[in-house]
């Protein structure tokens, strides 16, 4: 395969990967924050202690985390159809990516929030802060460096997951590497995609580290 043949393929795949990972990251950030906060609040001694809810949520998150992604991808096909109206294509791949990443990020969010100094939470309560104020202005705000670092890890994991999106016709760099590099022995394509994936991950990590460092005042 010549360069002129390869470049459009790589460009198309890069766009698909970027689209999948970015949209899935945004959705995961929102979902993971909500679930992570819920896990902390409903736990014993939490601001909204509700043990049964906590136990159920924890179970769902653990099931989500223990399923191999490739199985999740297929298992939720009916759900994907209900959400985006189709089960193949890049948009369809975003659904399993998000569903798979939310439990992963939610646990990171939970851990980051638990790291917030208990005294500070007590101090906020002593000042008359409401639950909402404590969540927004204390827990999430104080945990921000950890939340960003965790999101970076999640993005990198999503890049990995997205390589399997080809199964549902999602395209992307991973799919290209498998179809051309692995199945058709086009070694150049394989190497090129791998290099691009490395660059992708590298950029995500650098950006994440930079933001996390900016936010940290410890």
């Amino acid at each position, binding site marked *: 395969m010549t360069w002129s043949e390869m470049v459009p393929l790589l460009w198309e795949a890069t766009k698909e990967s970027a689209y999948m990972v970015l949209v899935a990251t945004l959705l995961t950030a929102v979902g993971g924050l909500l679930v992570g906060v819920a896990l902390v609040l409903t736990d014993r001694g939490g601001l909204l202690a509700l043990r049964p809810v906590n136990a159920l949520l924890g179970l769902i998150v653990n099931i989500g985390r223990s399923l191999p992604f490739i199985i999740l991808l297929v298992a939720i096909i009916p759900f994907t159809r209900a959400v985006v109206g189709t089960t193949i294509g890049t948009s369809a791949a975003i659904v399993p990516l998000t569903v798979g990443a939310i439990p992963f990020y939610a646990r990171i969010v939970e851990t980051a929030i638990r790291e917030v100094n208990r005294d500070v939470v007590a101090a906020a309560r002593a000042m*008359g802060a409401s639950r909402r104020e404590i969540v927004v202005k204390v827990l999430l705000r104080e945990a921000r460096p950890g939340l960003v670092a965790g999101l970076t890890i999640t993005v990198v994991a999503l890049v990995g997951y997205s390589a399997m999106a080809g199964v549902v016709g999602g395209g992307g760099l991973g799919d290209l590497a498998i179809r051309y590099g692995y199945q058709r022995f086009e070694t150049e394509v394989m190497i090129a995609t791998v290099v691009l994936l490395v660059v992708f991950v590298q950029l995500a990590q650098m950006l994440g580290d930079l933001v996390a460092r900016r936010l940290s005042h410890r």
Partner: protein
Amino acid sequence: MIRINGLRKTYRGRGGDVAAVAGVDLTVRAGEVFGVLGRSGAGKSTLLRCVNMLERPDAGTITVDGVDLAGLSETGLRTARQRIGMIHQHFALLSSRTAAGNVSFPLEVMGMPRRQRADRVAELLDLVGLRDRAGAYPAQLSGGQKQRVGIARALAGEPKVLLSDEATSALDPDTTGSILALLRDLNQRLGLTILLITHEMEVVKRICDSVAIMSDGVITEAGPVHELLAKPDSALARGIFRLGPPPVLDDATIVDVTVVGDGSLISAVARAHDVDVRILDGSVETLAGGRAGRLRLALPGSPASNAAALDQLRASAVAVEVHP
């Protein structure tokens, strides 16, 4: 100002129940600095956390400035808490906010508009002498400076009451001194009532008007410092005036005399009764309410033969204890 009645709080745990506060009655008068002194694990923090309902008591009532806190709804309690300041051993500042941002937090909670907030924050930082460090993050401040931010933050709601949980325990002696001086100053200038807990006798000596001694969840003695010092068997007095066990002397009367102000009465007694008063031991302390001391004297002869001198001591000292 603060009235605590029949307060109980038991923690239930795997290793059994811990009665952290096991029936406490306490009254803190308006405008005084009240210290609760006790060893680690005595239940002091639990007691303090019950005063603003950070911990819900199992039994008992707590009234702050005439308001029964246990009877309040969640919303009512939040409003009441805005009028009760609290400072913490490890400062409990938001690491993600500057000094000014930390002081601003309670004002945001109270719903003060942004414009007014900036002025009020500057005023509060001024009050604690930290105006020039407004933009510093807690990580860039010394322990003493952090506690000053904590104090400014606690005063944001113009509270009548300040609760202090070991506010100086994490500080060195000099810094402790300056923070205690600041608290005393705020107490006098603003008429702020302070309820503080501590395990350090030094804190009690320096700023407390009244004190309660707590151990194993109960108060063993309580009252104004000068009244407790006048009691020969007071644990506070024994803690402040550290005299050892009395020596055994033949044909001598050993007597512990507690005095306030200067100790001129000793020479007056020696002169009036023509006795050779020997001072065996003694401790004179500068307290928040003035100077006080306890001296161990030896008078020649039996207690009976010194009856007149002892009577004069009893008449003019705040406490006299004759050792048998």
